[in-house]
């Protein structure tokens, strides 16, 4: 073994250093500028909606029924409709999603069936929302005969948010260390007792995050409920799960594209948009806060 002789021409870095410093400065400035532009575009939407919608927003707008062919009054039915639809979607999707996640993470290893199921979930997550709408139309509205109703809409939305709930729950389960499971078995618990008594409580913040994200997604979607649940105008609040409902996102769409009195209706659309935006961002903010706090508090 020998050391090859030093090369006669030493690396000269001095002449090159200034150039490199300059390149770095320019490069990082460009990155910073891009971030500013990105943030600008996204904030301008929020600000635009907030500014135009704020003037309309008051207690009456939130709690009154629409009047005079949707040109006056409030948006209570739309708010309630969106509330019912998202609630319904979560009631259907939550148990199914959690149990699926438990099966995938706790009960099986990596076999072909699990791979296929996971691929199915991934693909379900990528299905365009309008296709869920068509599915709901053909199955719930027509085949099961639920008609255009709260029930059909909730079921359709439930299928759509199922992948969100499954994947966040799986993430939460994955982050629980194996020592917890061993401790459970160590005191003689069966698998289910271990899952119910130890794993689920530990995964609760993660599951909650997924649930809230799911609600937020369900509340904001329009295409899946377009043919399955919504109506443009109703005088009454929904009476049963088989009645048609109004919903905020569809309400906004309809007012902008099909409204006959734009002067009166566009402001209502802005107001509704602000309500929807606050609702969705608020929910997601809560979800993110829960997740961040759970991560910080985590003792393992």
């Amino acid at each position, binding site marked *: *073994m*020998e*050391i*090859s*002789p*030093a*090369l006669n021409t*030493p*690396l*000269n*870095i001095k*002449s*090159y*250093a200034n150039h*490199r*410093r300059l390149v770095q400065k320019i490069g990082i400035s460009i990155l910073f500028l891009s971030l500013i532009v990105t943030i600008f575009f996204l904030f301008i939407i929020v600000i635009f909606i907030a500014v135009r919608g704020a003037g309309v927003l008051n207690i009456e707008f939130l709690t009154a029924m629409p009047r005079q062919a949707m040109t006056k009054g409030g948006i209570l039915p739309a708010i309630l409709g969106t509330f019912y639809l998202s609630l319904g979607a979560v009631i259907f999707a939550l148990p199914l999603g959690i149990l699926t996640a438990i099966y995938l993470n706790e009960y099986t290893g990596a076999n072909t069936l699990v791979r296929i199921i996971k691929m199915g979930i991934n693909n379900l997550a990528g299905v365009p929302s309008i296709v869920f709408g068509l599915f709901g139309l053909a199955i719930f509205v027509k085949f099961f005969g639920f008609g255009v109703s709260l029930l059909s809409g909730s079921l359709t939305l439930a299928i759509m948010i199922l992948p969100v709930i499954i994947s966040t729950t799986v993430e939460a389960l994955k982050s629980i260390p194996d020592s917890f499971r061993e401790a459970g078995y160590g005191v003689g618990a069966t698998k289910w007792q271990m899952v119910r008594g130890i794993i689920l409580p530990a995964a609760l913040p993660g599951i909650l995050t997924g649930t809230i994200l799911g609600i937020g997604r369900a509340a904001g979607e329009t295409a899946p409920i377009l043919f399955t649940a919504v109506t443009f105008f109703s005088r009454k609040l929904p009476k049963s799960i088989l009645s048609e409902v109004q919903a905020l996102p569809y309400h906004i769409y309809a007012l902008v594209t099909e409204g006959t009195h734009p002067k009166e209706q566009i402001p209502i659309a802005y107001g509704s948009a602000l309500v929807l935006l606050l609702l969705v961002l608020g929910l997601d903010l809560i979800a993110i806060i829960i997740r961040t706090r759970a991560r910080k508090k985590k003792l393992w």
Partner: protein
Amino acid sequence: MVKVANINPPKIIPALLDTTSKCDKNNTRLKIEKLNVSFGKNHVLKDVTFNIKCNSITAIIGPSGCGKSTFIRCLNRMNDIIPSARITGKIILDDINIYDPNYEPYELRKKVGMVFQKPNPFPKSIIENLAFGLRLHGIKNKREIEKRVVSAIKSAALWDEVKNRLHDSAFSLSGGQQQRLCIARALAIEPEVILFDEPCSALDPISTAKIEDLMINLKQRYTIIIVTHNLQQAARISDYTGFLYLGKLVEFGETTKLFTAPKEKLTENYITGRFG
């Protein structure tokens, strides 16, 4: 000890002995003065002061958590990457304090190379792993790059094993080979000082022996500083040893003296295996 075959005794090439030496009359390469480091509220290094000699191997030993990795990462300002790090004191290399605000860390790291605990080649081919650093420092000529790459790989005692597959992925090498590739990568840009942060902790005894031999060879041209938790390793290869304990430099001196007749009780306890 594991018996190691296939390792030739180092051959010293006389012409190399005077290739570097930008040292002062005391033969000092690095002066460390009152170095203090803290991460947040955690005070990791306390008033560390000593000099590192030219063309020697200096080992830093100490129990886990004593700050030895933090110390070695100060010498090429690697701790700058950690946002919470606060560093005070001076480290003087070639008459300049490397913590001077005008001193660019990347110019420093050209002079002070580093080899890490885990082999960390880039996800590129063997030759590209070395060419990367050369191009950064302004060498664009393909022949020139090739010449330097081959020279560095030879110096890292890796040439025979990789000469036929320079364009393969660096990940096709074994762990020990990867670590020697990382050494070659550090050599390619012709540093003056090379830092080894527990370079053998992830390697088997045979690879370890190869790298130790390599280090002994390299000190003819470079100043080497190695952090190790392996006392035998420090005793085998180093000329000087510093013992760090709870962030303080307890003792520093010639390795033979430190290991045979330590001045401090703490040092004696540590090297005789009473704690650590």
